[in-house]
Structure formats: structure tokens, C-alpha cells
């Protein structure tokens, strides 16, 4: 095996290896979707965020308009404070409402924005006033059971 042949083969090998890494980063990972667009931050308070995680998508009308960058607990109001990183290309009215939604029946949770009608747009550091917490399945079921029990009790008393 002479030097030149080895060099060529090692070159091919290293190039193929880096091509594979690039393929993993761009096609398999989401490096391509990382936008370098300018963003602005908005905060929203929720009574319950369910399973919302950092980096969860923020969607408006089904289109991804940003990502959740921070989730923390406010020890004064006992609520969760979520920081939203929104793409500066998308401007929303000040009375936009935020909901925590689930994709599919048991899929991952994301933040849905519904635009309001205010003429003034949201800007860096604003807070969303209208929020709707995540639906907790256990609460729904217990509510349903309590209602059911109350109905039956009413029915018996009337008789």
C-alpha cells in the first residue's frame, strides 16, 4: 500500500464521515429550522401548564411562530410564568390570548396563540393577560364524576 493510495482513502473516509455528521445535523436534526431571525420575548402566567416544556413550539393558526424559552414558578402569585420567544416577523395584538394545547390526543403540548383585535401590538417584555391553562385529565374526570353524583342525588330527592 503506498502513501498516495492511503491518503486518498483516508480522505474519502473522513469526507464521508463529515458528510454523515452533516446529514445528521441538517436532515435528521433541526439545525436547518434554527432561525437567525430577530425575536422578542413576551411573558404569560398560567395557573397550570400541564406538561409544557422548554423548547415547546408556539403556534398560531397552526403555524410555528416561536418557542418557549423559560418556564418558572412565581412564588408570589403561585402561578407558572412562561417566557415566549416569538419571531419578530410575526406581530400580535396586545390582547392576544394564549392557550396550552395538545397535539393529537396524547401528543406533546404546545402553546397556541389567538390574535385579538387591539390596534397596539405586543412588544418586548409585555405580558399576555388572557391565558387558559392546560387541561388536566384527572380534574376533568373528577369534575364529571362529581356532577354525575350530584345529579343522581337531586333525582332521588325529587321523588
Amino acid at each position, binding site marked *: 500500500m503506498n502513501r498516495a493510495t492511503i491518503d486518498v482513502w483516508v480522505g474519502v473516509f473522513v469526507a464521508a464521515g463529515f458528510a*454523515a455528521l452533516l446529514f445528521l445535523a441538517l436532515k435528521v436534526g433541526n439545525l436547518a429550522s434554527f432561525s437567525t431571525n430577530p425575536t422578542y420575548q413576551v411573558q404569560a402566567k398560567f395557573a397550570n401548564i400541564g406538561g409544557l416544556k422548554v423548547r415547546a413550539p408556539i403556534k398560531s393558526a397552526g403555524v410555528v411562530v416561536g418557542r418557549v424559552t423559560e418556564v418558572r414558578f412565581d412564588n408570589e402569585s403561585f402561578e407558572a410564568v412562561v417566557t415566549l420567544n416569538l419571531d419578530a416577523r410575526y406581530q400580535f395584538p396586545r390582547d392576544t390570548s394564549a392557550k396550552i394545547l395538545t397535539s393529537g390526543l396524547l401528543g406533546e403540548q404546545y402553546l397556541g396563540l389567538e390574535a385579538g383585535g387591539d390596534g397596539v401590538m405586543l412588544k418586548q417584555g409585555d405580558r399576555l393577560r388572557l391565558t387558559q391553562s392546560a387541561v388536566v385529565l384527572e380534574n376533568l374526570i373528577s369534575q364529571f364524576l362529581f356532577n354525575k353524583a350530584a345529579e343522581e342525588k337531586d333525582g332521588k330527592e325529587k321523588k
Partner: protein
Amino acid sequence: MAPISNWRTSVAERRAPGAASRLLGRLGEAVTARLWRLGFASRFFGYMLLHSGTALRRFQLTLREIYFAGVLSLIIILVSGLFVGMVLGLQGYETLQRYGSSEALGILVALSLVRELGPVVAGLLFASRAGSAITAEIGLMKATEQIAAMEMMAVDPIARVVAPRFWGGVISMPLLAALFSAMGIFGGYLVGVQLIGVDEGAFWSQMQASVDVREDILNGVIKSVVFGVAVTWIAVFEGYDAQPTAEGVSSATTRTVVTSSLAILALDFMLTALMFTGGNAR
């Protein structure tokens, strides 16, 4: 004289003659011998790192070893990657379609390859394909007294023979693991999309939405670098430490494969525990 002397003489000197309990003595000897060996291996590792200047300055030496460790392992890595990916595609589809979420096949294939199977299986293959070759080569050089001849000529065999092989292996391993993962994802795509008929758009877009470049891909690459260091360290050490006989070389080769496979699996558990379970709050 070799810069690093053999540990065996030291153990033999230290053994107390006429021990009361032979069994206990033997047990103790086995443990001490292993500890000495581990210590010697660590000293060897440090010495090798300190004296790898030659391997990096005369890069042609390392390039040759990349050829033997990396290029010659390409075929086995690519073919097994393809098959592992195709099996993942079949099995994953079989399970996922029961829950009506066969579009998640892309996520399943990509995450299991990038996080676990890529580095681990490529590491195991690398240990048995390249690691054993490195051990056998160095062991044979020792058995045929080439190493001793180098010392006579004042050439440091660790700098000239061992370090280039080590760096060649360390450079090759992450590239091989990346190729394995890429090939596996391609195999999963072939079976999932082309053969079974999962929607192509959903396959790629769901994959891209849930594979994170830093969390998943970078951690996979870190894993493969760690495995590369572990496997080649074990391989060069076993070769250098082999008994200079035909039997010694063969048992050293076996030890390389066994020890490095165990090391890969144990390290994989530790790295996974560090990398992927700490981020519950994310």
C-alpha cells in the same frame, strides 16, 4: 530500557512466601494483579498522551492507522448500519401501527440510532474489527522483538508504534458511528417509506421536530468519542502488555474484544444516565 516497566515482576516480588491460607492468598493475588494492571494501564495512558507529539507531527503515521482502523472497517459498519436501520423500521412500524402512530417511525428510528445504537453497535463492531487487529499487531511486534529492536535504536516504541494507532482509532470511531447512524436512518427510510408506505413528509418532519442537534446528536458524538478512546486504549494496552508468545498474543486479542465490549456497555449506561435523564425539567 523501556520507559514503562512491566508490572508482573513487581507482583511476583511482592508475594509473601508460604501463606497460611492458599485460597485467600490466590484471591488476593488475583485482585492485586488486576489493580496493578489497572494502575499500569493508567500510567501507560498518561505516558502515551505525553508522547503523542510524534504521532501528530508526523501525521503520515496516524493517517496510515486511520486507514487500517477506519477505512477497512467501513464495509462492516455500513452494511450492519443498513441492516440495523431496516430491522428498526420493520419492528418499529409493527409496534407503532398498533397505536395508530406509524408516522412516528422516523422519530423512533432516528432517536434510537443517534442516541444509542449508533455509538454502541459501531463501538462493538469497531472493537472486534479494529481493536483486535491493533492488539494482534502490537503483540506480534513484541513477540518478534521488533519493539525491543526499536528500543535498542533509541526509538521510543510508544511514540512510534502505540500513539499513532491510538490517535488513528480515536479519530476513526466518531466518524464510523456517524456513518452507522446515517446509514441506519437510510435503512429505516427504505423499509418504512419505500417498502411499507409510511408518509414520507411525516417521516422526515416528525424526525426533525423531535431530534435535537445538541441534546441528541452532539451527545451521540460525545459518546462515540468516549468509546473510541476506551476501545483503542484497551487495544493498544493489551497489545503492548501481551506475553510475547503466540498464545499470549491470542489471549490478549480475546481480552481486548471482551474488555472493550464490556467497557462500552458500562460506559454507555453511565453516559446515558448523565446525558439523558438529568433534563427532566426541560
